[in-house]
């Protein structure tokens, strides 16, 4: 496939691996921010191949994983209402809330539908004027423009039975949170290419300066990731801390301006709780006052849901990069994709799922256990 297969070329990837190994004079610690990058790294075994030259720590950039339990429980409460059609991207459906997940709500009669775009949810609202249609607006800056567009269009078209349950988060405050942690080991970042396709990289320039860390805007295929790693390693070796762009085929410094403008018109920065990271000030997006009519939390009066957070799952440590998934005592035993303790084991971008789905054989082999 053009623009894809060339970024999966094994010969190119292996050559890059060689250059990384030659360039690194010590073992550097890098964090890939995005869960999509984590999956490529684990799926292709890049972390193993890099062993010795670079340690990859997996970052908090999985939108499903960092959505707090409280928001999941609000989604479940809405989905269970007989007057609501609840719409969501697919990978939120199996994320466990306090008592069940969206798939289970559906099996009990709740109207839960997978959509591929929030505009599809808007179409459902137009087709079912007798129902309230709620869309679960989760994600980083990548999904924010489409979600903003759905709200904008709803107002434009006068579709009153549409609302969004917003749990948007943004990347730069998460990078700050990782770097501010007293036990931080991360020396450089691969920033998430798709987020930067929308936002550009101007927000990362002050971070690179303030914390003196290299940040390389990076794509998602093996060649992208290895090239991003090489660029970061070169910076570290040369004592530089700049923002560089590996993903030049998709990202420019100022991003996609019309998309950013739309996001800014519909959303504003709010404090947001992150699963595992706690409340980070001004780290999320919420609807602006003038769009409050489309806010599901306002419309359905959801403010009162409060949940206790059980402790066995170590998603927080995984999302902060403190531990790798197999270091969790529940990994692969009490926590599997079929019976997840937390979102990182379910999401297609979750670090625990990546290790479980692609890495179990390696873990078993390393322990000398067949199967």
């Amino acid at each position, binding site marked *: 496939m053009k623009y894809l297969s060339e970024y999966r070329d*094994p010969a190119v990837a292996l050559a890059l691996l060689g250059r990384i190994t030659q360039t690194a004079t010590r073992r550097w610690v890098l964090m890939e921010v995005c869960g999509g990058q984590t999956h490529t790294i684990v799926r292709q075994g890049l972390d193993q191949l890099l062993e010795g030259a670079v340690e990859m720590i997996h970052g908090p950039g999985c939108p499903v994983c960092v959505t707090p339990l409280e928001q999941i429980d609000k989604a479940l409460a809405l989905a269970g209402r007989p007057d609501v059609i609840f719409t969501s991207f697919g990978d939120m459906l199996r994320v466990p809330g306090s008592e069940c997940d969206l798939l289970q709500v559906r099996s009990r009669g709740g109207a839960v539908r997978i959509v591929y775009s929030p505009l599809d949810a808007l179409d459902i609202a137009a087709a079912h004027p007798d129902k309230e249609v709620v869309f679960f607006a989760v994600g980083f800056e990548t999904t924010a423009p489409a979600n903003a567009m759905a709200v904008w269009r709803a107002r434009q078209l006068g579709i009153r039975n549409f609302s969004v349950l917003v749990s948007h988060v943004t990347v730069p405050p998460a990078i700050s949170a990782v770097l501010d942690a007293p036990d931080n080991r991360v020396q450089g970042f691969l920033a998430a290419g798709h987020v930067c396709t929308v936002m550009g990289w101007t927000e990362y320039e002050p971070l690179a300066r303030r914390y003196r860390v290299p940040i390389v805007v990076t794509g998602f295929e093996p060649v992208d990731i290895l090239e991003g790693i090489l660029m970061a390693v070169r910076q570290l070796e040369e004592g530089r801390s700049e923002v560089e762009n590996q993903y030049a085929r998709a990202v420019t410094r100022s991003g996609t301006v019309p998309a950013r403008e739309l996001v800014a018109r519909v959303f504003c920065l709010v404090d947001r709780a992150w699963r595992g990271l706690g409340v980070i000030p001004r780290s999320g997006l919420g609807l602006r006052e003038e769009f409050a009519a489309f806010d599901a939390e306002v419309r359905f009066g959801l403010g009162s849901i409060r949940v206790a957070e059980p402790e066995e799952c170590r998603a927080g440590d995984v999302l902060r990069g403190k531990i790798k998934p197999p270091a969790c005592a529940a990994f692969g035993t009490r926590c599997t994709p079929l019976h997840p*303790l937390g979102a990182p084991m379910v999401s297609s971008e979750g670090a625990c799922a990546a290790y479980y789905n692609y890495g179990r054989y390696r873990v078993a082999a390393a322990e000398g256990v067949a*199967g």
Partner: protein
Amino acid sequence: MTATALACPVPIVETERIQLGHGSGGSLSAALIRNHFLPHFGNPVLNRQADGAVVSVPGGEVVLSTDTFVVSPLEFPGGNIGSLAVHGTLNDLAMMGGRPIGLTAGFVLEEGLPFIRLDRIIRAMAAAAREAEVPIVAGDTKVVERGKADGLYVNTTGLGLLDSAFRPSPERGRVGDLVLVSGALGRHGMAVMAAREGLAFETTITSDSASLCPLVEALRTRAGAGVHVLRDPTRGGLASALNEIALASGVGIELEERALLVPSDVAAACEMLGLDPLYVANEGVLAALVAPSAADAALAALRSHPLGADAWVAGRVVDGHPGMVAMRTALGGLRVVDLLPGDQLPRIC
């Protein structure tokens, strides 16, 4: 929530109700059969959990198979629920080495189904049976109230004759066997997904729905007893089918990522939706585990028929990791290709 609180819920074990995932062909489906059906129905024939049941009759053995079709939408590029119902059961018989001699068809029709639609489906069904030269010899119809069925459901049951010298079976995989696959992966699943309401990406992907009997006949005559296992990787895709074989045979299977054959339009649609074509359904592809000595003959046999013109070697049966499927990645790493719990869920971004 404080900055140090770790936010994860207790595990949820849904034991009370059927979920859609129980029909996905993944590990939830396996648990449903193991925990609810086998304890009551279990017997030596059923316990083998093969595509069809080999039953002794005076004078020899026959193979029986049954399958129920609930596909939505009823019609999709490359076929409809009728042709699919014929191909599906014929293929299940063929995977046991059976040569089909007759089919039955049972219909659950929903009040309000337009005759014009029903007739299209029946015509496609008849055409598929005629092409395979297998008559539909008995049938049944029931009608349920509007809203109680999704247009129509079809069950087909087939009877096939067995050749005692050609007995492929899921537990017969042996170390050293090659894994052959008769065609490109993922066309049926992506054609249906593209046609499904609410997913309007522009595509020309057509279902691969077809009778595999001619391919199996070619394998029988040219590779014979060297064919150890046959499986049509329908729901759950090639990954799930090979996992079942690995478990049934107690062997490890290693796939080669570089060998994977996926049509470019299917690959593009899967990329867009975040799906892995290894888990997408096929309805006109077979996987065969073949002894090394018979592999060349088997590959030539598959390629001798238009349906198998693109037949490829997917991997081999290995000594290590019994019961598990792994894939040698293009970069030389080895990763697990696991059984999914339920359906693949399209990702956020």
